């Protein structure tokens, strides 16, 4: 039995395919269209899912959609009714897309895919809950979903056992911790639904002491948090419920200045505001989780929704709550809900037992050595072919040790927002200048943003102060932990200003070649850790195909591309060089 899950028309359109309850393919549309956070109908992602299993749309038994569009439309109309006449501009800008595509989703699916069977609509937060509980290793777990907004809901909690999920209570729009985070992101001059993680990275540069940071008390005025973690926002500080812009003048006055222009220098005030926001987010999350633990009485917690991408907060959960184990989908945001709907249909609605623990995120497209060779030959690219894997690993480790920046393109593309070692840029974390080198050659990103370390799972406790039982989700780069004091100066390129690192752990069985490379680098440097950052030009999606990878290398300062069994040196192919900064975005 095949079930296809689809999410689209908001942000991060994507598709996932289930075969007899097992997740066999998943990808985001942006990787194929090269448009970041692409919200269009995921035709390319669906095409990939079908081709990966060599099936046609006729073999799909069910298609699941990640929300109930009419409930969402009802919320939109209620917003306009409540906020008339302030919402006029928003009405004009949003209604056409509803009338043209969002309310015609059945027609769109049937027409674009030539699909004739059943389409099922799952409530958005149930899709989130299913995406985190059903592929988790837990038989039973408490569930928390927390995002910007679904149809009406912004936060829910519940309980999952075997193949059943119950969501008990909710907090409804417009009160949303996700939208509070997005509003401050906008206030600080960053793009909404894109740059929230930058605020998380900026926060440690601010004052993280609640008693001293003046903006903590100020921001507490915009949110009323109860003892059980439930909250409401004072909506006089916000206008996202009737306008395209998010903060009001009142919020600007409270925070002591107008909205920051994205080109304006970041001041200590901006950093302190980011810190205050992070503190409040963590406070709400921990309070909710402690309450949920009391009510649900499970040792396990699964999280989903965009707020679950806050890896700094995630890293504090087990220390500050009574939960003993935690699991999060590699893509807890809307991009991951397609897995949720497909599993919910198979397990909950059709009553099948769960048989799909998600152990790695390698669910995307891949290219054989023959396909890569053909690409290289067709483009007249000078390359070297490795004799075997040992030579590939040895040479790459040597190049990294010599401070070269490596584009690393191997196996199946990762599902979710993180590059986890198949579409990654790798470099040496031991060199104090590597952060500047990476920024100068490739990333050109804000100086305050840290780079992430990848370490073999067995070595992690030597370098990081982790939870006693290391959660499996460190494999998905979803937890930030402090780096042990004695190692901070030895791996400066991945040590954030507060001494933390957003680590990725890796097991040999997940990705033997990547694991082998880290170990080989460790033999040379005495520290088996690499910098792992996403393989893309700033503002572009992570590379998908050999063509994308080659273009990215030639448009940036990446020194070598290791693609499949081939090595390509940038200097040997300067005829194809171009300036990637011309297309770089936010």
């Amino acid at each position, binding site marked *: 039995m095949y079930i296809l899950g689809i999410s689209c028309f908001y942000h991060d359109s994507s598709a996932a395919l289930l075969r007899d309850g097992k997740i066999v393919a998943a990808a985001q549309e942006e990787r194929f269209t090269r448009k970041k956070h692409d919200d269009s109908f995921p035709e390319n992602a669906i095409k990939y899912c079908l081709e990966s299993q060599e099936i046609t749309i006729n073999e799909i038994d069910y298609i699941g959609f990640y929300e109930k569009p009419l409930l969402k439309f009802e919320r939109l109309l209620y917003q306009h009714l*409540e906020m008339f006449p302030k919402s006029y501009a928003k009405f*004009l800008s949003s209604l056409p897309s509803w009338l043209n595509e969002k309310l015609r989703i059945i027609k769109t699916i049937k027409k674009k895919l030539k699909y004739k069977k059943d389409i099922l*609509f799952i409530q958005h937060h149930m899709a989130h809950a299913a995406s985190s509980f059903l592929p988790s290793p837990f038989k039973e777990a408490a569930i928390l979903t927390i995002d910007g907004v679904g149809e009406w809901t912004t936060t829910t909690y519940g309980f999952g056992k075997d193949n*059943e999920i119950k969501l008990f209570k909710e907090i409804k729009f417009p009160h949303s911790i996700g939208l509070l985070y997005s509003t401050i992101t906008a206030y600080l001059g960053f793009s909404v639904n894109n740059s929230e993680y930058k605020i998380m990275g900026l926060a440690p540069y601010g004052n993280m002491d609640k008693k001293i940071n003046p903006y903590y008390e100020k921001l507490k005025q915009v949110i009323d948090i*109860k003892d*059980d973690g439930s909250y409401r926002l004072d909506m006089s500080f916000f206008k996202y419920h009737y306008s395209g812009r998010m903060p009001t003048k009142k919020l600007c006055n409270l925070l002591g200045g107008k909205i920051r222009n994205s080109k304006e220098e970041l001041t200590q005030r901006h950093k302190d505001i980011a810190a205050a926001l992070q503190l409040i987010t963590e406070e709400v999350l921990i309070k909710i989780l402690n309450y949920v633990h009391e009510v649900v009485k499970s040792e396990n917690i699964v999280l989903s929704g965009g707020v679950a991408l806050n890896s700094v907060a995630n890293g504090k959960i087990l220390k500050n709550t009574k939960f003993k184990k935690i699991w999060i989908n590699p893509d807890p945001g809307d991009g991951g809900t397609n897995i949720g709907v497909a599993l919910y249909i198979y397990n909950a*609605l059709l009553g099948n037992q769960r048989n799909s623990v998600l152990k790695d995120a390698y669910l995307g497209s891949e290219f054989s050595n023959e396909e890569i060779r053909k690409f290289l030959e067709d483009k007249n690219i000078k390359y070297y072919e490795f004799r075997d894997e040992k030579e590939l690993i040895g040479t790459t480790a040597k190049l990294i040790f010599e401070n070269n920046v490596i584009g690393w393109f191997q196996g199946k593309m990762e599902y979710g927002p993180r590059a986890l070692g198949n579409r990654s840029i790798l470099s040496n974390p031991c060199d104090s200048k590597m952060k500047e080198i990476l920024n100068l050659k490739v990333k050109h990103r804000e100086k305050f943003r840290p780079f992430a370390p990848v370490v073999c799972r067995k070595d992690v406790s030597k370098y990081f102060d982790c939870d006693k039982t290391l959660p499996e989700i460190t494999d998905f780069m979803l937890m930030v932990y402090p780096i042990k004091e004695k190692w901070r100066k030895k791996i400066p390129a991945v040590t954030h200003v507060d001494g933390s690192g957003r680590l990725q752990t890796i097991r040999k069985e997940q990705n033997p070649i990547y694991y082998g490379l880290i170990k080989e680098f460790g033999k040379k440097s005495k520290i088996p850790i690499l910098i792992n950052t996403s393989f893309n030009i700033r503002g572009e999606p992570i590379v998908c195909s050999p063509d994308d990878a080659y273009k990215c290398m030639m448009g940036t300062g990446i020194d070598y591309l290791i693609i499949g069994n081939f090595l390509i040196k940038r200097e040997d192919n300067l005829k194809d060089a171009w300036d990637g900064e011309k297309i770089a975005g936010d």
Partner: protein
Amino acid sequence: MKKLFEDFKKGQKAFGDDISSVVNFVLLTFTYFVGVGLTSIFAKIIGKHFLELNIKKDKETYWSELNLNKEPMENYYRQF
């Protein structure tokens, strides 16, 4: 000649898009002020609210009942 024909087609499309933008604007403005506006004013007169905007300090919790479980299969065919 071919280029001229293509440019003409492009121009026609742009003109069509402009016309549809104007028609959309007029229809949506009418709908907003007559449909949404009148309903909203009437709702305000009778004290009906469509969103809960206010903070309530005296409340113990903001959690509200959801009780979302598995529903009959036919409910999932609906978009609401």
